């Protein structure tokens, strides 16, 4: 015990150093930059007060970016969660067949988003894509999925839902399996209908899982970047531009560092609100047992 009191500090030091250098300090630096005007090359950073914030909030393009991000997140999360919940109720059974299906629908989750994006670009190709071939079978003419601003955001949502369903389903299955069996036995004795049992028993018992998936789903969706960068580049005519892509564009293409940082601070605020909401509600409402 020669190190004495210093020991625990030495043990946490490397980790805390990494967090400070690459997470805590950059957040501070980003907030600092959001009050400045800087093009990355010039040696001077001009203090501009809240100018970046007011400019950003009056920027019609950024308003569209915000709208895109919210629509994308809301639809992705609600669709993924409702489909996965149904799948979980269906697939929560023993047997090799069900195990195989669970594995199959989970598989996109471990594949690089680069490959997922490129595969779906090809599937959604207007002239030669498999998706339009399939729709043709039902007499629907070719849809310009990614090249029409009316369908482009929806196309990205489809990809996100397809990728996410397996993971969400397995989490729901884990949630279902943690519900004590004797509660169901009591319901069966009372001759409660299946639908009633689901709404009165299963759903409330699943609410912590439901809540967890909603929050991490929203926080994840707010940061969507890869599919946009590879499949649409934010277009056509800005229809798929979302916050992180907008920050990237402003920082790396237009060299508006202060402006990009301001958008980053706003995203930090949004994610912060949802995180706090999560912990607040976690400690209060959705707590059973």
């Amino acid at each position, binding site marked *: 015990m020669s190190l004495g009191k210093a*020991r625990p500090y030495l043990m946490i030091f490397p*980790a805390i150093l*990494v967090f400070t250098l690459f997470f805590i*300090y950059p957040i501070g630096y980003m907030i600092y930059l959001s009050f400045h005007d800087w093009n990355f090359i010039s040696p001077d950073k001009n203090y501009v007060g809240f100018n970046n914030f007011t400019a950003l909030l009056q920027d019609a393009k950024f308003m569209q970016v915000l709208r895109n991000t919210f629509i994308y997140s809301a639809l992705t999360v609600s669709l993924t969660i409702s489909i996965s919940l149904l799948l979980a109720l269906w697939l929560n059974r023993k047997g090799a067949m069900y195990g195989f299906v669970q594995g199959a629908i989970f598989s996109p989750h471990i594949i690089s988003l680069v*490959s997922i994006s*490129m595969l779906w670009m090809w599937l959604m190709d207007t002239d030669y894509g498999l998706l339009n071939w399939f729709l043709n079978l039902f007499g629907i003419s070719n849809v310009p999925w990614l090249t029409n601003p009316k369908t482009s955001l929806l196309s990205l949502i489809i990809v996100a839902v397809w990728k996410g369903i397996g993971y969400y389903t397995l989490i729901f299955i884990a949630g279902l399996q943690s519900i004590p069996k004797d509660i169901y036995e009591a319901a069966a004795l009372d001759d409660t209908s299946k639908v009633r049992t689901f709404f009165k028993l299963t759903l409330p018992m699943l609410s912590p899982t439901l809540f967890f998936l909603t929050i991490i789903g929203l926080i994840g969706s707010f940061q969507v970047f*890869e599919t946009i960068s590879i499949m649409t580049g934010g277009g056509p005519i800005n229809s798929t531009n979302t916050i992180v892509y907008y920050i990237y564009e402003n920082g790396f293409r237009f060299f508006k560092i202060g402006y990009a940082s301001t958008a980053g601070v706003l995203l930090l605020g949004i994610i912060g609100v949802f995180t706090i909401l999560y912990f607040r509600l976690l400690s209060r409402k959705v707590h059973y047992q």
Partner: protein
Amino acid sequence: MKKNPLWKVLNGIGLLILITIFALPFVWMISTSFKTLGETMVFPPKWIPDTLLWENFSKAWNSGPFLKYFFNSTIVALGILVLQFLTIIPAAYAFARYKFKGSNFFFGVTMVTLMIPTQLIFLPVYLQMSAWGLLDSLWALILPFASSAFGIFLLRQSFKQVPEELLEAARLDQASEWQIIMRIMVPMAKPVLITFAMFSFIAHWNDYFWPLVMTTTDASRTLPLGISKLREVDGGVAWNILMAGNLILVVPILFVFFFAQRQIIRAFVYTGVK
């Protein structure tokens, strides 16, 4: 479910449709990767190409320094993993087993980090890396992930569950704290460590965003970035070459998934539930 035979048939058809939705895109990917460029532009599409064009794979592989990309990806994913183990094991042990002044504060810092996505802070980190002259190096890809708040969180939970008597006995035997960590803590937490390792390796092996931001030349690019650059070959999009390239990226992961499915699913679901 009821034993009604009609139900069974409908259930079977449903499962088949479900598998198709997830497997068919991959089958399509494989099919495309063996086609000639002409065959990719046939509508309605052909499922089985006339001849299997294996040279698509060598064309994809030779279109850039893929051996270099592969090497970089391996170094980055493994380098991150080793550094994470070195930093999270002692930190998790200290948070789980020591009472020290400021421990709540430092654990709070760790938890705040858990909530900060890299997609949010890439710009300031980029500027920092630029100031340190580390841009476009593997260091820029490894260092920010040299520790993991998530790993500390998971490991702390399992370190807490080790009975105190075990540690007391070891201390009576003059075991150093280092020996206690290596001989008692780490073996007891092995499942969690394996879970975390899989999670971390897959995440960083697949990562596209961070290398895209931090690298500018092939010397430090990784596999996903190399694959994404395939699009720029020859101006137009050659879907057969593109799919062949992506297959090179996807097959190893799916192959591992096929054999370690149980563990990998457990890793992701466990990390999601905890």
